[in-house]
């Protein structure tokens, strides 16, 4: 892991819904707005589909930050998927924070199909924030189960 933040290129995974944010990100492209290459988009039908475990897996696999984004309230293509997602996030966030996991590395946002510019901005500010926070070694370290002396009794 590279600890020098100036050279540090954050790994960020974006979990987005197909109807709003994915389309919004398409619009960012069509409008030729530029953003950092650090973010890679994974397409879901709806934010309601996004399993919290996938966020944890991303961190365990070495992601330094995560973006979760979908339709604005009331705009969900599936009526209420984003409302269910929002509940899940509120619950999840509280739990993670209680366990000392850095919730500031998870950026939640609503980006509609018409908000290409907002998507570019969300990505760029998130990349900047994570760059500031540095690599999430604290978390990735514990992923190593081989450390017998500490963990194998």
């Amino acid at each position, binding site marked *: 892991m590279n600890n020098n933040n100036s050279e540090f290129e954050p790994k960020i995974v974006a979990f987005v819904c197909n109807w709003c944010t994915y389309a919004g990100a398409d619009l960012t492209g069509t409008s030729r707005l530029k953003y950092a290459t650090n973010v890679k988009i994974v397409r879901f*039908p709806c934010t309601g589909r996004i399993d919290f475990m996938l966020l944890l897996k991303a961190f365990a696999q070495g992601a330094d930050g995560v973006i979760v984004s979908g339709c604005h309230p009331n705009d969900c293509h599936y*009526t209420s998927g984003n409302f*269910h997602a929002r509940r899940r996030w509120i619950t999840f966030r509280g739990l993670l924070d209680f366990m000392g996991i850095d919730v500031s590395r998870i950026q939640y946002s609503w980006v509609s*199909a018409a908000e290409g510019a907002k998507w570019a901005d969300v990505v760029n500010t998130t990349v900047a924030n994570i760059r500031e926070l540095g690599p999430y070694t604290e978390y990735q370290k514990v992923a190593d189960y081989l450390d017998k002396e500490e963990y194998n009794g």
Partner: protein
Amino acid sequence: MSKIGVFICHCGENISATVDCEKVAQEIRKVEGVEYAIDYKYMCSDPGQTLIKDAIKEHHLDGVVVGSCSPRMHEPTFRKACAEAGLNPFLCEMANLREHCSWVHEKGEATTEKAFDLVKMLVEKVKRNKPLDSIKVPITKKALVIGGGIAGIQASLDIANTGHQVILIEKDPSIGGHMSQLSETFPTLDCSQCILTPRMVEVAQHPNITLYTYAELESLEGFIGNFTAKIRLKAKSVDHKKCTGCGACFQKCPQKRIPSEFNAGLGTRTAIYVPFPQAVPNKPVIDREHCNYYKRGKCKICEATCPTGAIEWDKEDEILTEQVGAIVVTTGFNVKGTDFFPEYGYGQYKDVITGLQFERLASASGPTLGEIRRPSDGTIPKKIVFIACAGSRDEAKGIPYCSKICCMYTAKHAMLYQHKVHDGESTVFYMDIRAGGKNYEEFVRRAIEEDHVNYVRGRVARVYEKNGKLIVKGVDTLLSGEQVEIEADMVVLATAGVSNCGAEQLAQKMHISYDPYHFFAEAHPKLKPVETNTAGIFLAGACQAPKDIPETVGMASGAAVKVAGLFSNNELVREPLIAVVNRSAPPVFSTCVSCFMCQTACPYNAIEREEIKGRDGKVIKTVAKVNPGLCQGCGTCVAFCRSKSIDIQGYSNEQMFAEVMSLLNH
């Protein structure tokens, strides 16, 4: 062992300009399970698709990843190509190398690396794709058209004429919409009502059209081919079966000073009223807000005068439930009022009017029977000023877009004025003249050259009243660059066209998306102009953006064809991207533990209970079951199910998991 084929598209220069497509293709070949990889200039082109088909056959591919534009653009194209080569279309995935990569990043290593990662991600996904069969759902061959303006009328007639049933609902007492309010229409100056009213009557009489005026959409459930629409029939308080439309009632109605919506507030109407003489249906409704009886509990004069006893005082709103297969939304637009403009007197000057109000003045059926007279004193204005772009193209006013129709109708207004007031003097303040369209430019030139309308390029800074005159202060930015001050008798504002009131709520009822100005969003700006993101719901007319009559009618016919196309099949073939509850070997049968929490989570009530029976017919256990017709594939239940007993085809746990893992394993 998978045999995946990867096809990297240059999209001309669109991708290859910033991404080293050749390198991506080379690198991806090294990835486990990739059998074949190649890059090509245009994958979506015929030779491109042939390339894919041949590779599928030659290398016996069991999965295809196309790295090109957004799947929202070409997924169907490539899935079709795969199907033609004998590969199940759902074994084809797309990596978005254009919208999500080449267009948003500069040329360089990082961009190519990202492109590679995106492709690799989809390779890992497609390895876990399963061949799927499309789902067939029956179609209710009946359309719902919402809004009875020219768009709704045209759409209804076109659909009805293909032999399908149409329900047309209109929130006002009569159909006709804005077009019925217009005097003449550009660029031909033919009388609006003369061309519209025959269509209105045709709607009323068409055997395939059921018309509900004074009605609004209450709620909408279901999905393409199978919508359930609840329609609120607002109480008219007049039984139209009994009413002959004789008009006795509204001649006697004591409430006479109600500003007439049809005349844009320039004329008045009664409480029991027919909005305009050619209204369809030409039968009155009672405006309860203004009716003496409903306000004070006495009057009932109309009842006394009605020869057929059609008045129904206690009539209540009815909710009508209709099954429809498709919906055309044609709810139109609105124009800003003069009160929107502090600089033009906040609507306090009677003789500063909107273009729509001018239409009513110029209309033979209007309050002045077609004579241009000042609302204030009824005199004929000798000097008139038209201000274009009133509100439009004005960031400060929150309306950055062009309302599109103002340039043309302003020219028309000036022309009509000149034709009616021969010694009058008309000035048009404009920013640019946008006269794109057949015979449009010629029309404007006619106004300037033949009717001597005085066109001044520049914004009007202020309008104020000074002893009976309206002082218009502006700048001529084209010639002199000097201050222009005109003492006008009347000022007409070409006010911005805006989305209709309630558009946002309506969109939310139907789950269609809308832009920041609450105009409804088409599925694709170029290629899907009449579709929405919600299958089975189409758009026509100014509810999508301001547009003129020819465009509206064209769009309406377009939407009608889409509906007719949908109705041309008995079954609708749907993508099988839906949730399914797992089944496993006995004695477990399914890992579903029947907590049925998913039922409360599902937005579509798509989750039912299914009994698993043994050979003896005894119920072993009851588990959840997904109704494939109702499930829309949002996957909320999937993320919610604790025992992971529900999964969604096409976005399965294995697929999504593999995608995330692949992104970070280097």
